[in-house]
């Protein structure tokens, strides 16, 4: 349009070409410079899961809302800095929403159904529904005390924190990536489990699509009836897809087995079965009063036998691993930080139960205990030791 434009666009075109060229050379040289670093995950997925599960354990040790909030913030910070741009990382938002819903439901129940917590600060009085005598012990409506609501909120927050920790694990490392670390003998079962798990999201997507399609037939696309009517087609579609996937997996060599001498096969079976029996007997021994002496050794022997069985069983599968995730010092640091948080909070809950479980009767404002708070901050360690994923 303007006389200057062609020139300008030409210039920008050249600049773009230069950039593209630079990008290409960068891409070509990248693998040479840092083999395996650029696109692979920076950390073993197991480390992320252990870290997140440890935080979850820590959350169960306290009801102090300040500590729980600190835990949530710490995990959220790590997720915000380290989650991958992959679609499954978006599940964090879903988990956060679910956590909020759990918290609200818990409080609503306390309000509507009453609570065993005795309280004196009446917030409001709901009309109480008289129930027949056989429903004694259940109350609908009635007095709502501040103590009951606060107690429910503390409790709900604990559950919510737990859920958010699981969400963090999902966002930081997809469960499928964990699969790669399974022992060979369990790998194929693991694949089957993961395929079954992805069935659910596909099913939900199908339901949404088919409900939307009802609109095209001139039927209401909302409501329960709509959901029921698409049920059969959805299941049919999901089943067909599963069969197609199974065919593809079969054609790609899923389930190939190697020839194993009969002796090894029999040993494997004996070890696995014996090991499992040992685990059962050992656990029983540990839990009963009488078996204190033999419990632990039997349990350990059982675990050992089962592990050997698994290892031998792996020989039947000729699978190899493509670029297994290495478990390096960073993985130790991340796992260690999580474990430290869990251990320190457990310790604190024994030493100083009052600070970690602030009282509701009488109602007092929760205080932030210094040392447990510092312990929780240890959970931030991964944010500083793990390099960020390239976006």
């Amino acid at each position, binding site marked *: 349009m303007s006389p200057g434009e062609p020139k300008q666009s030409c210039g920008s075109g050249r600049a773009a070409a230069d950039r593209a060229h630079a990008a290409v050379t960068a891409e070509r040289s990248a693998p040479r410079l840092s083999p395996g670093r650029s696109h692979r995950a920076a950390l073993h997925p197991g480390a992320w899961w252990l870290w997140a599960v440890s935080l979850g354990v820590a959350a169960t040790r306290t009801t102090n809302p300040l500590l729980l909030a600190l835990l949530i913030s710490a995990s959220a910070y790590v997720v915000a800095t380290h989650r991958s741009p992959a679609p499954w990382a978006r599940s964090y938002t879903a988990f956060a929403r679910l956590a909020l819903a759990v918290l609200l439901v818990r409080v609503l129940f306390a309000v509507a159904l009453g609570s065993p917590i005795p309280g004196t600060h009446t917030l409001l009085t709901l009309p109480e529904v008289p129930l027949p005598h056989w429903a004694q012990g259940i109350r609908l409506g009635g007095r709502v005390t501040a103590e009951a609501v606060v107690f429910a909120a503390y409790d709900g927050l604990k559950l919510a924190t737990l859920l958010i920790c699981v969400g963090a694990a999902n966002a930081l490392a997809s469960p499928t990536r964990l699969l790669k670390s399974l022992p060979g003998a369990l790998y194929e079962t693991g694949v089957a489990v993961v395929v079954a798990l992805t069935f659910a999201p596909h099913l939900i997507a199908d339901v949404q699509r088919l409900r939307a399609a009802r609109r095209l*037939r*001139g039927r209401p696309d909302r409501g329960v009836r709509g959901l029921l009517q698409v049920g059969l087609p959805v299941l049919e579609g999901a089943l067909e897809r599963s069969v197609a996937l199974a*065919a593809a997996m079969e*054609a790609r060599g899923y389930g190939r087995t190697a020839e194993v001498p009969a002796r090894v096969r029999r040993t494997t079976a004996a070890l696995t079965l014996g090991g499992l029996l040992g685990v059962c007997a050992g656990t029983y021994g540990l839990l009963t009063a009488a078996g204190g002496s033999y419990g632990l050794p039997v349990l350990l022997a059982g675990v050992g036998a089962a592990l050997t069985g698994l290892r031998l069983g792996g020989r039947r599968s000729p699978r190899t691993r493509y670029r297994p995730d290495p478990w390096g010092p960073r993985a130790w640091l991340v796992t260690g930080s999580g474990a430290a948080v869990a251990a320190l909070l457990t310790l604190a809950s024994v030493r100083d139960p009052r600070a970690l479980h602030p009282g509701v009767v009488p109602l007092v404002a929760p205080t932030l205990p210094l040392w447990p708070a510092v312990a929780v901050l240890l959970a931030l360690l991964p944010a500083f030791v793990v390099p960020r994923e390239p976006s």
Partner: protein
Amino acid sequence: MIRFEDVSVTYEGAARPTVAGVDFEVPEGELVLLAGPSGVGKSTVLGAVSGLVPHFTGGTLRGRVTVAGRDTRTHQPRQLADVVGTVGQDPLAHFVTDTVEDELAYGMESLGLAPAVMRRRVEETLDLLGLAGLRGRPIATLSGGQRQRVAIGSVLTPHPQVLVLDEPTSALDPAAAEEVLAVLQRLVHDLGTTVLMAEHRLERVIQYADRVVLLPAPGAAPVTGPPAEVMAVSPVYPPVVALGRLAGWSPLPLTVRDARRQAPALRTRLSATKPPAHTPATGDPATVTTGDPAAAAPADQGTTPATGTATTPATGDPAAVTPGGPAAVAAVPAGSRVAGAVRVGAVVPRPRGQAAPTPGRPPHRAPRTPVRRSFFRRRPAPAQEPPRGHLAEIRALSVRRDHVQALRRVDLTVAPGETVALMGRNGAGKSTLLGSLVGLVAPASGTVDVDGAVPLRTPPQDLVRRVGLVPQEPRDLLYADTVAAECAAADRDAAAAPGTCRALVSELLPGVADDTHPRDLSEGQRLALALAVVLTARPPLLLLDEPTRGLDYAAKARLVAVLRGLAAEGHAIVLATHDVELAAELAHRVVLLAEGEVIADGPTAEIVVSSPSFAPQVTKILAPQRWLTVAQVREALR
């Protein structure tokens, strides 16, 4: 490499074999194309190579299939995994892991290759298929062409000697299809891989084939031979072959290049006998054509949308007819224009209410000289109906889906009787645009108006009488377990007289029994059933999403006839398609989308002629002249 010895396959419960007397051999390093109408058992033959038929599907296989010396009777598919790589119709159903790199490694892991070997082959394959930039990407975020390449790559890494592909390019846009075919070509030429593939879109693949195995009819023995010989007798053939047969060229050309060498005589004949039929229509459209999207978009918005479509053709009309040449030519359109105008006048006031009297019209009109109609049809309709020049109007529509800007300030108007083709890459926003016309997609900004209603806020039972959409997967529309039940439900949904839908089905799909399960219909039949269901409510605006995916040429021709009839009745039709031949045959206007923006909007001839990837074969062959379809040429030669 692959050897079929008198093979027949009978599925359980079937009265007769699906394929019989299959006896051919594919030598090493050849690319062999398996062609034939739908339902002749192409997928069965492909499945027999990988051993999935009969090990996985059940049924009885007689005869013997050997691949690289291994008999599929004694070898399970998983034991053939190192010699045969199979990619099915839907690449998404093929993926086991979530990222590109892991997917490429999966097959090798199953075979137990050494880690160092796997690493090397993954890198090689990433380069070979141009996937290096995508290695860490989650598969769910890839486009259709990229997925297809990853699927091919994932079976290539174990270095199979044989590659089996079922419709590798059907779901792809023209550019992505070429990408995939280039890769196949490279495999065959550089690595000596043997490729056996089935494909309906012969115009895309026939030139790459060394040999063609044609399955002419269900249960009939295959015909094997060089492509040119087989195409001379084949019931399915691409437009270039159709033109070659029409012009009597020998040897039969398979590529545009070969055809162009033989074309000069035809070109002179065509220019001598009659000027190209659609120059009149293309005479005017300088207003909105291809080119700079930034320049085109404001121009589009500048004219008020009501007059946008109405005035452009109208002003173009006189200018167009005068240079149109011989009076004889002008007379023909003039005569039929009157007829067209009357018909539109009869149809347009009808929209709601008295739908019943004319349920079965469209198909009867179909066979009549559609080509001419295509360029005058657009004009009379707006002229007849000044108050409402357009049936659907989209203004400055933006849509966001999953954090992606699917559409950016799109403007589009559709007039009654007009057929518009939406084209563009996979993921350019075509389906989103159609979805917003039926209220499936909520706009982020902008307005959508269909027949005076806002689709998103119109209750479904009201909306079906204004606009109907046949989705990409017609099965999504079908819930019942028999055709009759489906039709009864459609009549109820549309509040139409009982039997309306069944009458439509009988016309679109002669000879389908009432108690057939919709799932047992072929792809084309299912599409026809879904179309009938949608048409039961007589919507003046009809939308189709990728209607020709998986259709053979015969089914496509039937669809074209039906849609032309509907357009002649005054229905406005919008189709999203990758099929340039379909767009050339049907559309009055082509709208090109890229990254959610309209980059070109104008008469079909104008748009497709100027674009190398969207030009149909006939256009390329007769290049300086503007012919679009074989039918046009046939008409002109008559």
